[in-house]
């Protein structure tokens, strides 16, 4: 009779790659973010402006519809960097509100639940965790930023006169790059606020506060000291400076591209520091 020693034997079969494991975290975060009804409502609402812009592009490319109008009207109906910048500014505001709604749900519950040790006792790092949260938020923000933006751009390309693309390719590229920069900033703000505060509602308010209070402070600095560099602490304004450079539009008064990039880099570094300090596997109450 054979006697088999029964003891512990570790699984040594194939395992999924790191990217596949990261995808699990991203999917989980995506499900959590999109499970909120308000997020769906806001996503729907954020389609209104792109639809209006699409209508505008249609009108602009069908001269027969406004044939009787005067010349000044014709100049308004121009699809140029100003049109794209206006589109980007409006959608940027939507994206901030979306991040304030969806972002805090990504990290705060894990902090409130003391669930981080469970994640970090798996073969995933803090970087993986933050990256997954940012990636899911980036996916959500993409739906209201560069995706509708590129759709509009492609719509214009398809309707415009031959040669428009050759003269304006920079608009599409600049729009996508500018929005990705914005998504990175908004995502970092959302994750940092979510990591800083356990309560979702307060974390959401903090996200909104970050953008709107800083823009207010920037305006106050400009007003009191009669300067223009106050705009640099306004993340939307600093990003707008970069967008202008990317789209080939004139830079706003008082801003240069290096200054705007430096301001955004500094904000990003500070936010990353907050995330690094707050997202620890083990919370220590001293």
């Amino acid at each position, binding site marked *: 009779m054979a006697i088999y020693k029964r003891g512990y034997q*570790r699984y040594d079969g194939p395992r999924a790659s790191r990217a596949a494991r990261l995808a699990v975290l991203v999917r989980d975060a995506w499900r959590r973010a999109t499970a909120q009804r308000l997020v769906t409502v806001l996503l729907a609402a954020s389609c209104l402006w792109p639809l209006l812009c699409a209508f505008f592009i249609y009108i602009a490319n069908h001269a027969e519809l406004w044939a009787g109008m005067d010349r000044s009207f014709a100049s308004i109906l121009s699809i140029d960097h100003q049109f794209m910048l206006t589109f980007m500014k409006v959608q940027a505001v939507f994206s901030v509100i979306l991040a304030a709604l969806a972002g805090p749900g990504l990290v705060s519950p894990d902090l409130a639940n003391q669930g981080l040790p469970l994640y970090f*006792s798996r073969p995933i790092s803090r970087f993986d965790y933050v990256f997954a949260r940012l990636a899911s938020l980036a996916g959500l923000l993409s739906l209201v930023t560069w995706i509708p933006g590129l759709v509009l751009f492609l719509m214009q390309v398809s309707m415009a006169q031959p040669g428009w693309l050759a003269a304006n390719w920079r608009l599409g590229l600049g729009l996508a790059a500018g929005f990705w920069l914005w998504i990175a900033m908004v995502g970092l703000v959302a994750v940092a606020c979510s990591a800083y505060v356990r309560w979702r509602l307060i974390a959401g308010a903090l996200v909104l506060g970050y953008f709107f209070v800083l823009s207010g402070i920037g305006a106050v600095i400009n007003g009191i000291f009669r300067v223009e560099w106050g705009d640099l602490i306004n993340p939307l304004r600093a990003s707008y400076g970069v967008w202008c450079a990317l789209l080939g539009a004139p830079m706003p008064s008082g801003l240069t591209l290096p200054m705007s990039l430096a301001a955004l880099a500094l904000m990003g570094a500070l936010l990353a520091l907050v995330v690094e300090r707050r997202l620890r596997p083990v919370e220590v109450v001293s």
Partner: protein
Amino acid sequence: MSAPEIVFENVSKFYGDVLGVNRVDLRIPPGLTSIVGPNGAGKSTLMNLMCGLIYPDRGEIRVLGIPPRDTERLMRITGYATQFDAAPRWATGFDFVVSSLLLFGYSATLAERLAWAALERVGMTEAAHRKVSAYSKGMRQRVRLAQAIAHDPQVLVLDEPLNGLDPVVRAETIALFRQLAAEGRHVIVSSHVLHEVDSISDRVVLLANGSVIAEGDIRGVREEIREHPSQYVVRCADPPRLAALLFERAPVTEVRALEEDGALLVLTRDRRAFSRVLTALAAGGLAIESVVPADENVNAVYEYLIGGGA
């Protein structure tokens, strides 16, 4: 072949000015080990250190030969259940365990099979598809245990795993720990409830103020504490006679009649001599019903070691 022990060598961990653990030297062999100590003794710090959740400020740790900074390898051989109620409320117990397995890199099919097996082991199959938010405290405790054992780890680190369990489930869980330990794994549980670790552990590590104050099996630790006489409860038909004989022949320091009929509490500094005398008395015809050590438990040992600090 990796070393089959968890080794701490002169390990210290501070959180700023706050002491976590200090100069810990420890070797934990396979089997069921309890880490015992009052709140703030450093139990969780020790567990977090061996799981690679935090790193020591000084000293070296090897978990079966793997340094904690090699998280990719370490996490695969360790299963960890935090003391906190950390299971996500929005997920079902099954989804929670499956997700944790997917993070280890198992395929979806295998993850589902392993999750089901783990939930079966902790007796949670019936409630597997209910949301964690609808679970009782004991069920949440069990589902946390399930996620810790689901990937079949060689080292199980369970922080206060018996909290919130009712007596029946507690007994089942302890039986599961024993089974896992009998399979050759390291099962390390922490507890601040001293009396419960007696019944479950092969060995204990007693912590106080961040330092290991004793380790080993309870009896061994007790024997090392020579300044406190050993205590026995002896039951016999004629207690006054037994008391007189013990005073006459054995190295006892105190014999006290207990309220219970026929029971004596005997204190001795020489356990072997006491045992010899008692055997001789029984052989001589004195009806001795039972001899039970009264202080070979963690509570007593702890009290002797740190003066009732527990």
